[in-house]
């Protein structure tokens, strides 16, 4: 029997309900508001009184309105058809909603129940299976979408029967399993899972051992993110956070991308809706949209659903990871999610932590980041969820609770810098403050020297050193004046400018420069480092400046040209000439 209740108090979207039976934490309920059912989640229970956060506007709600509890947590439907869909934070399909405005209480089905899928069985009758084992697969776009034993199944099952290859809709019972007690259960292509619980169903979660290419030099070369790794991008407004995230989404070497637009501008999501169907994935040549799911809960949509949206996105990622896929989750921005937590904690009159955020903010953030990672599945194959979140620190000050808590949880840190953005040095990632802990992993270092070139990490460290020395030199020049420092200072400074202009800066809007494959990154870095190793004898700083400006110009032209193409080679010759004359 499901519990019911009556509304006894309302403050904005926090509603207290007097219940007539048992309710559980995070249980979903529906509040009847003059015929419209409003979805809500239990966030606190005190005796017979439950505090619920309503995922919609509570306008018109009255004390005494009836509430029905659902005896389940907030769930998502998992099955073929998730890709290329656009959902709100509660997994309602935005594309099938009627009307221009979002209607309160309108919940649409996330999956198409009519569509037929080409099913091929993997398991055979008699096979012993456990949760998350593969029973069959359908082609979703070009991806093999595995139909699995539902994650909620406990213990071992025997496959009793499985349908032959053919076309079925998602509600077809494709397999019948028998549990240890001899009871038969039907398995369809769709299963439900509570979003706030991590999907297990894998054998182990090893340390990440490969890097995930993004085509962005300042990430891949200087501070690479691991496949199954975590990273975050904090930065003040106007520093290019969103452009950088979109670049990663377009180019990231992943099979499935989930973008969670969490409390951000609607026009930015419209940009994704407009552009992605046109864009081609550089890795497969297919439309980007085919491998992308968008979870969109923009800043004007209800706050509680914003909090749910990141969990919805993560659950979808974990589902595809269980199929052995490389999944990338991008969340923009996790600060808005934290603010949603703050608003609710405030309404519940909890004692606040720093900046009025809830005291457990740090643990909520780290347990969310912990859901990412690479896993070894039951069948020995691997899958991964790589997670990159953006953080929008108040006033651009990185000493605030969300940035600090995230810094503890994420392994890569890409600090966007106002100063670089003002100078139009994009991507405005600060090369010194940013870091990737993965560069310290022996597995990753080994992988890089095998995959890229032996001694690669040493080259990267050398590059960072050049930038650091250049900064120091620049400070001295600024204090003492151009004439007040020895020539070597100017040389050091310009060598770091060379690295900055050729390696760090990258034109996200240029067809060629925007994506740099790893072999090209290695080639260019080697070229730049070779120049940095050279000794020059300039007569004055003007000569030094002009010489390096010329070098930078040629190397930038190379960045804009097709790798080893005609014009690339032409500029390479120009460069060699200049270098042999310069010595």
């Amino acid at each position: 029997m499901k519990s019911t209740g009556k509304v006894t108090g309302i403050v904005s979207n926090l509603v207290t309900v007097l219940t007539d039976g048992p309710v559980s934490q995070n249980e979903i309920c529906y509040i009847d508001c003059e015929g419209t059912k409003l979805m809500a989640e239990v966030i606190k229970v005190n005796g017979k009184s439950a505090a619920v956060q309503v995922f919609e506007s509570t306008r018109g709600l009255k004390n005494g309105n009836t509430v029905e509890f659902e005896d389940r947590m907030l769930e998502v439907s998992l099955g073929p058809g998730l890709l290329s869909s656009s959902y709100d934070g509660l997994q309602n399909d935005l594309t099938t909603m009627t009307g221009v405005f979002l209607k309160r209480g309108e919940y649409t089905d996330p999956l198409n129940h009519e569509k037929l899928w080409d099913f091929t069985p993997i398991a055979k009758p008699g096979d012993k299976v456990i949760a998350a084992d593969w029973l069959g697969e359908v082609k979703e776009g070009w991806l093999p979408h595995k139909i699995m034993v539902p994650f909620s199944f406990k213990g071992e099952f025997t496959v009793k029967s499985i349908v032959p290859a053919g076309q079925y809709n998602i509600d077809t019972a494709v397999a019948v399993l028998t549990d240890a007690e001899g009871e038969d259960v039907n398995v369809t292509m769709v299963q439900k899972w509570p979003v706030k619980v991590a999907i297990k169903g894998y054998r182990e979660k090893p340390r990440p051992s490969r890097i995930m290419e993004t085509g962005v030099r300042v990430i891949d070369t200087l501070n690479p993110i691991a496949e199954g790794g975590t990273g975050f991008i904090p930065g003040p407004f106007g520093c290019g956070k969103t452009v950088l995230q979109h670049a990663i989404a377009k180019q990231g070497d992943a099979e499935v991308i989930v973008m969670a637009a969490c409390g951000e501008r609607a026009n930015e999501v419209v940009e994704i809706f407009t552009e992605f169907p046109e864009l081609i994935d550089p890795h497969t040549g297919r439309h980007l949209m085919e491998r992308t799911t968008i979870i969109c809960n923009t800043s004007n949509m209800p706050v509680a659903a914003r909090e749910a949206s990141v969990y919805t996105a993560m659950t979808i990622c974990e589902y595809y990871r269980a199929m052995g896929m490389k999944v990338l989750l991008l969340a923009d921005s996790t600060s808005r999610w934290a603010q949603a937590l703050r608003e609710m904690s405030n309404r519940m009159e909890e004692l606040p932590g720093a900046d009025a955020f809830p005291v457990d903010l740090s643990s909520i953030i780290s347990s969310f980041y912990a859901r990412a990672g690479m896993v070894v599945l039951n069948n020995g194959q691997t899958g991964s969820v790589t997670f990159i979140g953006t953080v929008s620190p108040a006033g651009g000050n990185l000493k605030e609770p969300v940035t600090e808590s995230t810094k503890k949880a994420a392994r890569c840190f890409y600090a966007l810098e106002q100063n670089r953005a003002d100078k139009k040095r994009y991507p405005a990632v600060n090369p010194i403050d940013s870091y990737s802990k993965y560069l310290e992993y022996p597995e990753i270092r080994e992988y890089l020297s095998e995959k890229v070139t032996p001694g690669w990490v040493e080259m990267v460290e050398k590059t960072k050193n050049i930038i650091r020395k250049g900064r120091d030199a620049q400070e001295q020049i600024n204090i003492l004046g151009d004439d007040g420092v020895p020539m070597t200072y100017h040389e050091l400074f310009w060598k770091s400018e060379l690295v900055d202009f050729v390696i760090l800066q990258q034109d996200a809007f240029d067809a060629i420069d925007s994506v740099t494959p790893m072999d090209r990154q290695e080639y260019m870095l080697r070229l730049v480092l070779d120049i940095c190793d050279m000794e020059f004898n300039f007569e004055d700083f003007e000569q030094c400046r002009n010489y390096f400006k010329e070098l930078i110009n040629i190397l930038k032209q190379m960045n804009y040209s097709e790798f080893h193409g005609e014009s690339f080679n032409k500029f390479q010759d120009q460069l060699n000439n200049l270098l042999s004359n310069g010595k």
Partner: protein
Amino acid sequence: MANKAFQRIYTQLEGITKATVSLKAAGVSNDELAVVNGRLAQVVKTKGDLVTLQIFSGTEGIPTDAEVTFLGAPPTLKVSEELAGRFFNAYGEPIDGGPAIDGEERQIGGPSVNPYKRKQPSELIPTGIAGIDLNNTLVSGQKIPFFADADQPYNNVMAQVALRADVDKIILGGMGLSNDDYLYFKHEFESAGALEKIISFVNTTEQPPVERLLIPDMALTAAEYFAVDKNEKVLVLLTDMTLYADALSIVSNRMDQIPSKDSMPGSLYSDLAKIYEKAVQLPDGGSITIIAVTTLNDGDITHAIPDNTGYITEGQLFLRSDPDSGKVIIDPFRSLSRLKQLVQGKKTRDDHSQVMNASVRLYSDAQNAKTKLENGFDLSDYDLRCLDYAKAYATRLLAIDVNLNTDEMLDTAWGLFGEFFTKAETGIKQVFIDKYWPDQK
């Protein structure tokens, strides 16, 4: 329905604060309006049978035996074509002496547009001000604030922008306007003969601050009527959003909420986003564009109000008084329109973005020259030319009293390049130099 809420009258208040009263009442719905001794109030909290009402005009003189009547519905606005040309207060009541509006009654602060149904903004909104059109082009469906110090003429600039913009309706939401500014707007609109396309919702400094909270929702409900029902291009002006946020903090303070940064409520971001995100390009051609004013404390943009605004809006425009030209200019360095690339060179001439970048870069060279001058270093010939250029650029293009169309702005810029620089110094693509470089006299 046995007991309709609005039929009941209560006469016993349980508590009174500066902005709220509480009383025991039954059958009250969230957000619904009530009248307390003739003053309008709204339900903000219910706990058991205890209801808290926020009284828009303040609680001064409210007795514990005040008469409370519940109206059974949240704040509404009557919408129809009759709105055009009229002035209203925060409750949507005419203040221009004209008759009441007849029309469909709509709840204010309604739902948001399904993001999937939005269109990408792509229509240029010309203002004639080069600091905007040339450097920070506005696009219909955009939301952008002026960040200005209190002493800057932001209301004048906004009135100018509104009157020059090619839109069907202009809706002014004035929050905490001084009476002088209100009369200024009224006079400007009247003398421009544009009254029939202007609708104003005004709360002046003489009126209670909490009333301001209704202004943006009133203005945007009217805007949605014209943009959604009539497919019109609507421009909404909101001034001053800092005073709106201050009113939010007053209410949250009275309700004992824990303040976050700068004593603002923790929900400031969502509260502001709800307003700004009403800016939209609709599929059927209508659009709502929002130009707002956020006044700053001595240029401090790290304060919670401008900071949250910056994360929500699509750019910002900075006003600055320029000592060289003696004019108020739109600062080319700190101003930004995030949507400009959607129209520059697409809806305007092909050289637009190159000319914009070159002119700003040369202006920044002039700033470097100025620093050199201040530090007592010698200036080169190039530095001197930059300084002359900067003055001419500020006077002829950046100043807010300029009124040109975009082609004229581009031609003016080319004229300045020809006057002060060589072709190579501008660093503009050769094709554009060949096409547009002014002939030598």
